[in-house]
C-alpha cells in the first residue's frame, strides 16, 4: 500500500519554490508572502498527517515505495516512525517561523530576495526527505544535496566572513559524507552477496558482517553524523557557520540540520550495526561528555552572542548523543524529545539575538547593556529563551534533559554524573550574558533601540508557547516517541535495566 502523504509533503515546498521562481523579481513582498504561505500549508499538512499517526505501531507508517534505479537496487522509499515524525514536525513548524521572523534578512544578500526564498523552500523539501527516507541511498542523496542550499544561504546572505564559513561548513560535511559513502558502498556489496542488491533499511539491518567490517562501517556512518551533529572534536565548523549565517539560516542549521546527525545515529548506526554500537558505546559516551563540558566552558568564554549560542548547542548535542548511546528507552526518548525542544529553544535564542544584533549593528555581548529598560519585550523573550536553554523546570528542555540524565544514570552512572555538571555550567553561560546585556544601566548606543514589532511578536509567540506547553505537558510527543525508542533499543539487543525494587521482586 502506498500512501501519498510524505511525497505530497515533500513536493509542496518544491512547488512553492517553482511558483516563487516565476514571480517578478521586483515584487519582493509577493515573493515573501508566497514563500511564507507555502511553509504554512506544509505545516498544516504535516499536522494533519501527524494526527493519523498510529502511536503504538512500531513499523514504518505512511510508507511509499517506488523503483528508482532498479539496476542498482535503489528505491524511492519513504516512511515514518515516531522519531522521524517528531523531527519532520520540528522542521515544518520552524520553517514558517523562520521566514516570518527574518522577514528582511534576505535583503543584505549577494543575490535577489527571490533566490533566498527558493533556496529556503528547496531546503525544506530536503529536510523532509532526509527524515522520511527509508532507503539508505535516498537518505544519502538528501543528506548530501541539502548541503548545497545551506551553502548558498550562508555564503550568499550571511554576514562577516560568510564565504569562508560556508566553505568550511561544506567541506567538513562533504568529508563526513564521503566516509559514509564508503560504508554505503560496502553495505551495497554485502547485500549483493547476501540475496540481492538493496538499500532497504529493513533488509540491511539483518545483514551478516564480520566484527571487523561492522566496526569499520559503523565508524564511516558515525563520523559523518558526529560532524553533522556536531560532537567534539568535529565541531569547529559550527561556530563559524552560525556566526556568519543569517539568524533564520542559523535556526534551521542548528535546529534541524544538525539533528540529521543525531537522528542518523539512532536510525542508521544503531539499527544497522548493533554489535559495533555496543563496542563503541564507551568511547562515544566519553566524546559526548567532553562535548557537554567543553561546549559549556567555551560558551562561557564567548564574547559574541551567535558564537555563544553555537557553543551552547555543542553542549546540548553532547546531551543528545549521551542519551542515544545510553541504551535505555528513557535515554533515547529523552534524546529525541531533546532534539525537538532544542530546536525551539535555539530558535528563540537565535531569533532574538538576531533582532538584537540587527538593531544594534553588532552581536558582541559587550555592546549591549540595560536592554530591559529600553526594549522590555525583547529582553524578556531573550531571558525566557535563555531559561529554556539552561533547562529551567517548567520549560520543555528540562523534561528532556532530565530524561536523558535518568536514562543514562541507570546504565552509565559516571557519565551521567559528569554530564550533570553541564547544567551548572549552563546557568553560567546563560546568566552572565543576560546580566551584561539586559540588566544594569543602559549603555551608550542602546538608548534608542526599538522594541519588538507586531510581526516579530507573532513570530516568536508560537515558539514561547511550545516551550511552555511541552514543559508542563510533554506526553503528546513522548507517546509518539516512546514506542519507537523501545523498539530501537530492542533492535540493538538491550532492554531497560531493572530498578532495584524490581530486582528485589525477582
Amino acid at each position: 500500500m502506498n500512501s501519498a502523504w510524505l511525497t505530497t509533503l515533500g513536493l509542496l515546498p518544491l512547488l512553492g519554490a517553482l511558483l516563487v521562481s516565476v514571480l517578478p523579481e521586483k515584487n519582493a513582498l509577493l515573493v515573501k508572502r508566497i514563500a511564507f504561505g507555502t511553509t504554512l500549508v506544509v505545516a498544516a499538512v504535516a499536522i494533519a498527517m501527524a494526527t493519523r499517526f498510529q502511536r503504538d505501531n512500531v513499523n514504518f507508517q505512511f510508507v511509499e515505495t517506488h523503483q528508482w534505479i532498479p539496476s542498482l537496487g535503489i528505491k524511492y522509499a519513504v516512511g515514518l516512525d515516531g522519531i522521524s515524525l517528531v523531527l519532520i514536525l520540528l522542521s515544518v513548524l520552524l520553517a514558517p517561523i523562520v521566514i516570518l521572523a527574518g522577514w528582511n534578512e534576505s535583503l543584505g544578500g549577494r543575490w535577489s530576495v527571490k533566490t533566498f526564498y527558493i533556496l529556503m523552500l528547496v531546503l525544506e523539501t530536503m529536510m523532509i526527505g532526509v527524515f522520511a527516507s527509508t532507503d539508505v541511498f535516498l537518505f544519502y542523496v538528501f543528506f548530501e544535496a541539502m548541503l548545497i542550499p545551506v551553502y548558498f544561504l550562508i555564503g550568499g546572505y550571511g554576514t562577516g566572513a560568510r564565504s569562508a564559513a560556508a566553505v568550511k561548513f561544506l567541506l567538513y560535511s562533504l568529508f563526513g559524507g564521503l566516509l559514509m559513502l564508503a560504508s554505503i558502498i560496502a553495505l551495497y556489496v554485502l547485500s549483493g552477496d547476501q540475496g540481492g542488491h538493496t538499500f532497504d533499511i529493513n533488509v540491511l539491518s539483518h545483514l551478516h558482517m564480520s566484527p571487523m567490517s561492522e566496526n569499520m562501517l559503523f565508524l564511516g556512518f558515525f563520523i559523518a553524523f558526529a560532524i553533522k551533529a556536531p560532537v567534539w572534536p568535529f565541531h569547529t565548523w559550527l561556530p563559524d557557520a552560525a556566526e556568519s549565517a543569517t539568524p533564520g539560516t542559523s535556526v534551521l542549521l542548528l535546529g534541524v540540520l544538525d539533528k540529521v546527525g543525531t537522528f542518523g545515529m539512532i536510525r542508521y548506526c544503531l539499527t544497522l550495526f548493533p554489535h559495533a554500537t555496543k563496542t563503541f558505546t564507551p568511547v562515544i559516551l566519553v566524546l559526548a561528555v567532553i562535548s557537554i563540558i567543553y561546549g559549556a566552558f567555551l560558551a562561557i568564554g564567548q564574547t559574541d552572542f551567535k558564537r555563544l549560542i553555537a557553543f551552547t548547542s555543542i553542549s546540548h548535542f553532547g546531551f543528545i548523543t549521551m542519551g542515544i548511546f545510553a541504551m535505555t528507552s528513557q535515554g533515547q526518548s529523552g534524546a529525541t524529545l531533546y532534539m525537538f525542544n532544542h530546536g525551539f529553544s535555539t530558535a528563540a535564542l537565535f531569533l532574538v539575538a538576531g533582532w538584537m544584533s540587527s538593531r544594534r549593528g553588532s552581536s558582541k555581548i559587550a555592546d549591549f547593556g540595560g536592554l530591559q529598560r529600553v526594549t522590555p519585550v525583547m529582553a524578556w523573550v531573550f531571558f525566557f529563551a535563555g531559561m529554556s536553554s539552561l533547562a529551567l523546570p517548567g520549560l520543555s528542555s528540562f523534561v528532556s534533559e532530565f530524561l536523558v540524565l535518568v536514562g543514562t544514570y541507570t546504565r552509565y552512572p559516571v557519565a551521567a554524573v559528569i554530564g550533570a555538571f553541564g547544567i551548572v555550567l549552563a546557568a553560567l553561560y546563560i546568566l552572565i550574558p543576560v546580566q551584561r546585556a539586559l540588566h544594569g544601566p543602559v549603555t551608550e548606543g542602546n538608548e534608542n533601540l526599538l522594541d519588538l514589532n507586531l510581526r516579530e511578536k507573532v513570530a516568536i509567540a508560537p515558539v514561547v508557547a511550545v516551550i511552555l506547553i511541552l514543559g508542563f505537558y510533554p506526553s503528546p510527543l513522548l507517546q509518539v516517541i516512546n514506542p519507537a525508542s523501545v523498539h530501537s533499543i530492542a533492535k540493538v539487543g538491550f532492554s531497560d535495566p531493572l530498578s532495584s525494587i524490581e530486582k528485589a521482586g525477582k
Partner: protein
Amino acid sequence: MTTFLAPTLSYSLLAPILIVLGGAVLGVMAEAFLSRAVRPAVQLSITLGSLVLALAQLWRIRHAASLTAAMGSVAIDGPAILLQGSILIIAILGVFLIADQDHFTTLAAALPGSPEERESQQSGQRLTEVYPLTLFAVAGMLLFPIATDLVTLFVALEVLSLPLYLMAGLSRRRRLLSQEAALKYFLLGAFSSAFFLFGAAFLYGYSGSLSLSGIHTAIEASPGNQVFLFIGVAFLSIGLLFKVSAVPFHAWTPDVYQGAPTPVTAFMAAATKIAAFGAMLRIFYTALANGYWQWRPFLTVIAIITMLFGAVVAIAQRDVKRMLAYSSIAHAGFLLTGILALNKAGLDATIFYLFAYGIATIGAFGIVTLVRDSSGEVTDLNRWAGLGKRSPFIATVFAFLLLAFAGIPLTSGFIGKFSIFSAAYESGNRAVVVVGVLSSAIAAFFYIRVIVLMFFTDPVEDGTGVVIPSILTRATIVVSFVITIFLGVFPSPVLNLITSTATFIR
C-alpha cells in the same frame, strides 16, 4: 608457396569507421580545391555529416556481435558499440565547439609574429585543416577500443594521436605556448608509443601471438617465460597509461590542456579518455584477466597515486584549464579502479563513468571558451571572480558541472563514482575505494573554490566577460548540462542498456 587470400571484410560492421575516414579524406579534398570563402561551412557540414552518419550506422548494427569483421583483428560487441557511440556523441559535441573558428590560427604553418601570419590574419581568410584532422582522430579513437590484436591497436593509437599533436598547436592566441604544448605532447607521445610497441614485442615473445585471444590462451596454459609476460604487460601499460594521463605518465597533461585551443582540449580530454580506457578495458579484461597477479599490484599503486596526486596538485592551480587538467588526472585514477575491479560491474561502471565524465568535460570546457576579454580567453581563475553576477546562467551551469565532477548526488558524477567504487569494493580491493573516497573529498575542495570565486567574490572590472555563445556552443553546453542531470536523476535507462549489452567476446 603460400597463396595470397583476399581479406574478407564485413563492411557494414566497419562502416562507422569507414564513414569517418571517408569524411576525413573528403575534407582534405575540400581543403585543397574549394575557395577559402566557402570552406568553413563546407568543412563543418562534411564533418558533422559523417559523424552523424557513422552514429546512425552504429545504431543499425547495435545488436551485432562478431569477431570476424576484419579477419579477427577487431571485435564488434556490446562494449565496442557503447564506446564507439560515446566517442561519436562526444565528437559531435566537440565539433560544435570547434566550429567557433575564432580559437584557431588562420595559418598554422606561419611562424608566430611573422609577416605571413599578419597578412593572413588581415585578409580574414583561414585554413580549416582542423576539421579533417578531427575526423582522422575520431577514426583512430573508434578503432582503438575494438582492436583485438596488438598491431591494430598500435595503428589505431597512432591514427588517433598524430592528428591530436597537430591540433594542439593550432591556437590563435598565445601561439608559442600552443606550439610548445604540441611539441611536448608529440615527443612524450612518441616515447610512449615506443614503450607500447616494446611491450607488444615482449607479449609476442611470451605468447607467440599478437592477438588478444592468443595471449589469453597462452596465459591460461601458462607456458613460457613469466618475466616476458611481466615486462610485456608493464610496457604496454605505460603506453596506455600515458594516453589516459595516469601518474607518473601525466606530465604532458596540464601543459597540453592549457596550450591547446580550448575546443581541442575539450574534444581531446573527453574523447581520448574514452578511447584509451576502452582499449584498456578490452586488453585487461580479455587478454590479461587470468594474469591479473602480474599487473594488479602495480596498477593498484598507480591508481592510488593518480587519484591522490591529481586531487592534491589541482588545489594549487590558478588557471582553470590546468585545474581541469589535474582534475582529469584524478578522474583517470577513479577510472583505473574500474579496470582493477575486473568484474562485470567494473566493466559496466567504467563505461558509464566514461560517458558521464566525457559529457560533463565537454560542457565545462565549452564554458571556458566563453569567458573572454578583448585579447581572447581568460583562464586565470582570479579573473573569474564574480562570474555569477555577470552571467548567472553560465556560472550556474559551470558550478553544476563542477559538482558533477565532485560527485555530489543528483549528478551523473555521483552515480558514476558510486558504481565504479562499488565494483572495486566487490572485487575486494578496499584500499582503492578508501583512497578514492578520500581523494574525492580533497577534490571537492578545489571544485568548490571555483564556485566560491564565481559566486561569493565581487567581480573585478578588468574587461573579463562572457561572450554570447554561438548556437552550436550553446547547444553543446545545454546538452551537456541536461545529460548530466538526467544521468544523475534517472540513470536507469542508460545503466540498463550498459548492463544488458556490455559483454566482451573473445
